[in-house]
């Protein structure tokens, strides 16, 4: 299978994401100014500071030419994974519920955190076990997931929360300790922690690889 990893001006983690994808498949970098997704099977919107986080995190990247194609790809059921800034961009694009607010401490924090897998029967978590704990680093200033009460209830009721910070592990103040949510259809998923930084025992844990493996499993089963 082939992943496409987006690159906006200011994206920082695209090479890391590409390397993670290449452990389970092939990966190409897709330029923000293009509209051709080059026939990839899944999209990764990586972390970083697209457009310097100016105006509001993710708000400018959402209007990049490539995003029109990504939105169309998502509407057709293609798997889209947003990591950190990518999660923020997908929220801004209306592909994921809720919004990311500044951390409760208002500071950037880089820390290895434990996540709990809420649902393992999804495109993004099928290589995990339900209630499995994943050790994955998180690093952000704007990662406090929020949704208005009605929407939050709906997201919870639909089982859209796939990853939650383990008790005491959240540093950002996310509603319900939400670390990652999917859309209703289940083919778009965003999370604040960085699974692409947890794919090699030399640099830490390998738990993040399970998310990339899950996507590869899904694509492999559907071609």
């Amino acid at each position, binding site marked *: 299978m082939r992943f496409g990893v987006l690159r906006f001006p200011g994206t920082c983690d695209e090479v890391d994401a590409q390397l993670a994808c290449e452990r389970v498949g092939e990966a190409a970098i897709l330029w923000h100014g293009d509209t051709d997704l080059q026939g990839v099977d899944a999209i990764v919107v990586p972390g970083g500071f697209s457009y310097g*986080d100016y105006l509001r995190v993710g708000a400018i990247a959402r209007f990049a030419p490539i995003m029109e194609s990504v939105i169309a790809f998502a509407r057709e059921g293609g798997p889209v994974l947003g990591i950190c800034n990518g999660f923020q961009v997908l929220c801004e694009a209306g592909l994921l519920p809720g919004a990311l607010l500044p951390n409760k401490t208002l500071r950037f924090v880089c820390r290895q955190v434990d996540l709990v897998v809420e649902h393992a029967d999804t495109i993004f978590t099928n290589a995990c076990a339900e209630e499995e704990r994943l050790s994955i680093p998180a690093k952000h200033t704007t990662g406090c997931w929020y949704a208005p009460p009605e929407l939050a209830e709906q997201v919870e009721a639909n089982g859209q929360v796939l990853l939650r910070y383990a008790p005491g592990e959240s540093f950002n103040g996310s509603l319900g300790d939400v670390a990652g949510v999917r859309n209703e259809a289940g083919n778009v998923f965003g999370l604040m922690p960085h699974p692409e930084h947890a794919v090699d025992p030399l640099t830490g844990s390998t738990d993040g690889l399970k998310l990339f493996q899950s996507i590869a499993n899904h694509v492999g089963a559907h071609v």
Partner: protein
Amino acid sequence: MSDTATAPHRALGLTDAEYELIVEKLGREPNAVELSMFSLMWSEHCAYKHSKKLLHQLPTEGPYLLMGPGENAGAVDVGDGLAIAFKVESHNHPSAVEPFQGAATGVGGILRDVFAVGARPIAVLDSLRFGELDSARSRYLLEHAVGGIGHYGNSIGVPTIGGELYFEGPYEQNCLVNAMALGIAQHERLTRSAATGPGNALILFGALTGRDGIGGASVLASAELGESDADKRPTVQIGDPFAEKKLMECSLELLDRELLVSLQDLGAAGLTSSSSEMASKGGLGLDIHVDRVPLREPGMEPFEIMVSESQERMLCVVEPARVDEVLAVCAKWETTATAIGEVTDSGRLRVLSGGDVVGDMPVEALVDDCPLYDLAPEKPSAPIYPAPRRILDTDEPAAILPALLGSWNLADRRPVFEQYDCLVQSRTVRRPDDADAAVLMLPAAADGTHPAIAVSIDGSGRRVACDPYRGTVEAVLECAANLACVGAAPLGLTNCLNFGNPEKPHIAWQLSESVRGMADACRALDVPVVGGNVSLYNEGPEGPIYPTPVVGMVGRLPDAARAGRLGFAVEGDAIAFAGPFTPSLPGSELAKLRGEPLPDGLPEVDVAAVRKAQEVVREAVRRGELRSAHDVAEGGLAVALAECCIGGGHGAAVDFRGAGAAGERLLETLFGEGAGGFVLSGPRPALAALAREINLTFVGEVAGEQLTLTLDDDARLSWPLAELRAARARGIADALDS
């Protein structure tokens, strides 16, 4: 005042004699454009006029050296055709005036130095000094300088993997913010800055040029801080990491496509310095049309354009046939690029505006003819620095250890380093707190193992204040010890010499002794200096800073998987003290907390014995025989043991009987400092083998949930792990949260 008003050169920081020399070199009076350019090029910051003669002592040759001092950054060979470029630089005065932007642009500047030589930046480290944290000013400077470093480094996607942070009274007014960056490149991609080929185009790319930072190098960086520094805020530049991110990717793509003849970043003294350095290195001239420079605001004068220190700009020399391609790459990265001039064979830097020549100077006069001054060093007859304030009132070791661990110089740095992304680029094998040095892996070798580089930055101002020569030797040894603990052999070092006003004899003495110490230590370890920076005039109204030579050292290890860790790892492992370590209390952290005056001199160090111990520890780590290795530094053996316990989450039972752990010598044994000591743990036979080569004493084993020390009279001191952890947790965190 009237003198200054009538003599513009004095207001710009030039002496009368220097001005007369400029007139002689030009054969006429300089006009306003030329005078402002000379004032910057002949400033301490650009010309190193008080330090250059001393710096010749430093060894700059070594087997791994690829590029030495004189380029934007130095570089060493790390094998497999790869080079690591690195450099440390200060941004002290800007940070003292405006800490967030000062620190941020310090990071931005050092990153540009690294990608200017064609290397992709892969790591940042920082070395910070502030006054004591019970001062509101120091807490403000700390919070905002750390915020600025994080803001810039995080946004640009370069990990901040290490650093050091100390608090001492003499830095109260004049904090130190030194940033070090490392980059990676193929050998053949290393790029020099010499302008070559008359007729080639000079292209300025990156941010627009504005009025920010005008006179930063001369007015701010080359004079003491005073009462009215708020007025100098306009001389501090404003950083835009997003612009720099695009500039970096754009520069690296231009080099990848082999479109450039040479490349240079714009730092202190802006276009003036970058263009004249490029021309000087190439032995040629340059014509610069200032009216072609894209401006942030209308109506800027030619001299303002030439001296502006607007950030995120680069200058390159391009063959005429390649100009369109260069402009296209810049357009792709949404980076403004403009041909602003051309290389000439005149040997002169000419500034043109609207077709008129508004400045015309020999390049040599600007770059090479600044007078170099001999220092008049004199050892001070009385102490320069007041004794530190006494804040610890006990002789009880049971109370001293938690007090030391909670003191600002030793407390947990996590609240600071967690504000930095240490992971981006996926090379970080040892994060801050994992080990004594940061470790970054390199691409896999043919057999699948990943070689790695290790980096450490260090320098204790207080110990250099006690003894400029030996304190500096200690700083170099400490860096090498940190590398040894992860299994790395040093390849090269960069330094930043932060001192007071060198025109004062006692400061000149500190500087001369310190440079002599650094030169001797580098020779003893066979480590060349690949480049660095000198920051003088670091004085506030209360007096000079502690003399602070900061050393950044880069080493290599063959197998990242075997990189050492500092924490005790396995219950039942033997613990040993190793190395030629002779603890002494004067000048130590404990002496500081007890308010003792700085001693006049530190004990002599047996550098050869320390080197031998480092080599033995390094080889043992490389063989994978040790489970932990940690060098003994601030706070002595007891603090080192506590750090090993906290780092690994294991307790230890340690027997000090027979080690002078009683009476008068008890505190010295537990908390005394000096070079050359290591705390090692591992299987007993492996450690026993090392004892054949170096001083090594078995002292106990990794055990349980507490640190227990048995003293000469069989008395026991014991601290639960949780108590040690709690003692260390709050010092910095409280200051940042207050």
